[in-house]
């Protein structure tokens, strides 16, 4: 008889968990940008009331590191007896047999039979893989430090941009990273874009242009070309490279075959990001800037701490989503921040009208309409990409008397997983592509040419349900 109480198809499937994680990460992102926008214009200003972006960058990194370490320690608080029991057992194994220690462990009975709690640490409610602070392996360190470098460049430019750029313009423009990721995929695959990709790229580009138009302000509708070049050439490029290295970090495994959890990835990335952001900011800091730094440190502490905490949570959710699906889809879903930016900017204007300026005058509704249309175009353009994915399963046999290399299969673009099987077939290769046609190159031109594989059978998934 089937036990329906242990039915595996939960109400919240992996697919929906993935969507919720990515969307939540996007919404939190728009909130933290709004807080930063306020802090930048209201608090970190010199005696003339001008924002000091370099002071803001250094302060954010210093406060960010303090807050993040405290946050990770809070997440490490045990909520069941299992970690305490394991810790004492581990200590006991290192020490000679002693009565007090024996007494200590006998007081704590093994929690395996008595406890039914799902998680051992507080942080596992956010990140179920979290087991406390871990030291990454050498390879992970390489990817994390490279992520930190590009995240540092990205963050440095971010602080320059939010000084003058409106929230409703910055958020859509920051989504341009998806276009770079698609172009990157096309270059790696040596292929031409498909219809969906062309359509999405055009929608995102037009959406960003529409959202950036504002003829109600003093500049008469002219674009701020320096900021636009910074956002397109430096901010989004570094963002795209950062995403690639984060994905590499997520995929890296230690000697036991375990990957680093999202909380640790964020902590270590933040560590390197802070170093690089501070290094980039320091050459611009004069003695007067250090005075602004000390004067504003106290009032800026709380908003920066909240903002950095939100960044931390958003990044954990983002990295978790990244470990569950393709990076272009994660970015697609988290692009909901584009739309969330509009109500947040309005709300910010109600609370602090002097810091969250909105289009004014008779033509304000035109600018709002353009921003709304722009945001919707960017969002739908990005979501369109995520909806067009195809999953193909390839069953294959391995030829006898021949060495075979899993890494050669894994290195093929689109290959998500390789399962070694018993039975009729030896391998099941899972492949993800944008369209069925895109499966041609990895299957016909790459997999079929591997000398150790034979009898390849491709099957496209029409519909899938995950527990």
């Amino acid at each position, binding site marked *: 008889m089937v036990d329906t109480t242990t*039915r595996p198809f939960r109400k919240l499937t992996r697919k929906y968990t993935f969507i919720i994680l990515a969307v939540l990460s996007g919404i939190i992102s728009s909130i933290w940008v709004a807080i930063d926008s306020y802090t930048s214009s209201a608090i970190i200003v010199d005696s003339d009331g001008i924002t000091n972006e370099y002071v803001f960058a250094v302060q954010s990194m210093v406060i960010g590191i303090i807050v993040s370490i405290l946050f990770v320690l809070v997440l490490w608080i045990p909520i069941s007896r299992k970690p305490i029991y394991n810790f004492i057992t581990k200590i006991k194994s290192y020490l000679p047999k002693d009565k007090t220690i024996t007494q200590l462990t006998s007081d704590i009975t093994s929690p395996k039979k008595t406890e039914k709690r799902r998680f051992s640490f507080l942080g596992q409610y956010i990140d179920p893989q979290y087991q406390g602070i871990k030291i990454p392996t050498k390879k992970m360190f390489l990817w994390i430090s490279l992520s930190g470098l590009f995240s540092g460049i990205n963050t440095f430019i971010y602080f320059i941009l939010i000084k003058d750029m409106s929230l409703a313009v910055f958020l859509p423009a920051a989504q341009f990273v998806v276009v770079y990721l698609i172009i990157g995929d096309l270059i790696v695959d040596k292929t031409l874009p498909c219809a969906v990709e062309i359509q999405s790229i055009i929608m995102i580009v037009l959406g960003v242009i529409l959202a950036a138009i504002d003829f109600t302000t003093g500049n008469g509708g002219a674009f701020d070309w320096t900021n636009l070049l910074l956002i397109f050439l430096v901010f989004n490029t570094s963002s795209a490279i950062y995403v690639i290295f984060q994905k590499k970090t997520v995929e890296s495994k230690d000697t036991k075959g375990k990957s680093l959890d999202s909380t640790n990835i964020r902590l270590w990335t933040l560590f390197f990001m802070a170093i690089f952001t501070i290094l980039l900011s320091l050459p611009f800091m004069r003695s007067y800037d250090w005075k602004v730094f000390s004067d504003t440190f106290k009032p800026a502490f709380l908003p920066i701490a909240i903002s950095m905490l939100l960044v931390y949570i958003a990044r954990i959710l983002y990295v978790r989503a990244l470990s569950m699906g393709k990076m272009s889809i994660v970015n697609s879903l988290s692009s909901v921040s584009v739309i969330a930016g509009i109500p947040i900017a309005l709300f910010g204007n109600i609370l602090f009208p002097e810091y969250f300026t909105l289009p004014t005058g008779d033509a304000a509704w035109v600018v709002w309409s353009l921003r709304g249309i722009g945001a919707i175009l960017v969002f739908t353009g990005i979501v369109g990409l995520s909806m067009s994915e195809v999953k193909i399963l390839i069953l294959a046999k391995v030829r006898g008397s021949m060495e075979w290399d899993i890494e050669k299969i894994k290195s093929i673009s689109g290959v998500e997983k390789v399962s070694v099987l018993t039975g009729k077939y030896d391998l099941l290769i899972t492949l993800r592509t944008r369209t069925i046609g895109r499966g041609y190159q990895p299957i016909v031109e790459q997999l079929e040419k591997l000398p150790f594989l034979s009898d390849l059978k491709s099957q496209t998934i029409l519909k899938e349900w995950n527990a």
Partner: protein
Amino acid sequence: MSSPDKEIMKAYMLINVALGRTNEVLAKIKLIPSVTSVAVITGEYDIIVRLETLTMNEMYNRTQEIHLIDGIIETTTSIIQKEF
């Protein structure tokens, strides 16, 4: 001493279904514990099921449950030795 973590047994089950009975078979497979994913596919087989159990005996029981579903013509079960 704490016992080492038990390894989960994973398997794929490739299924051929009688014409017109796919939905009925799918609904029954989804109710079986240890089934972590099920997909309708094109090609040699009609459905692929992924099972994850703690013991080989449990795996045997789950595959037996699937065998008993009306509408299934043939199944091929492959244990996953390793995943990359």
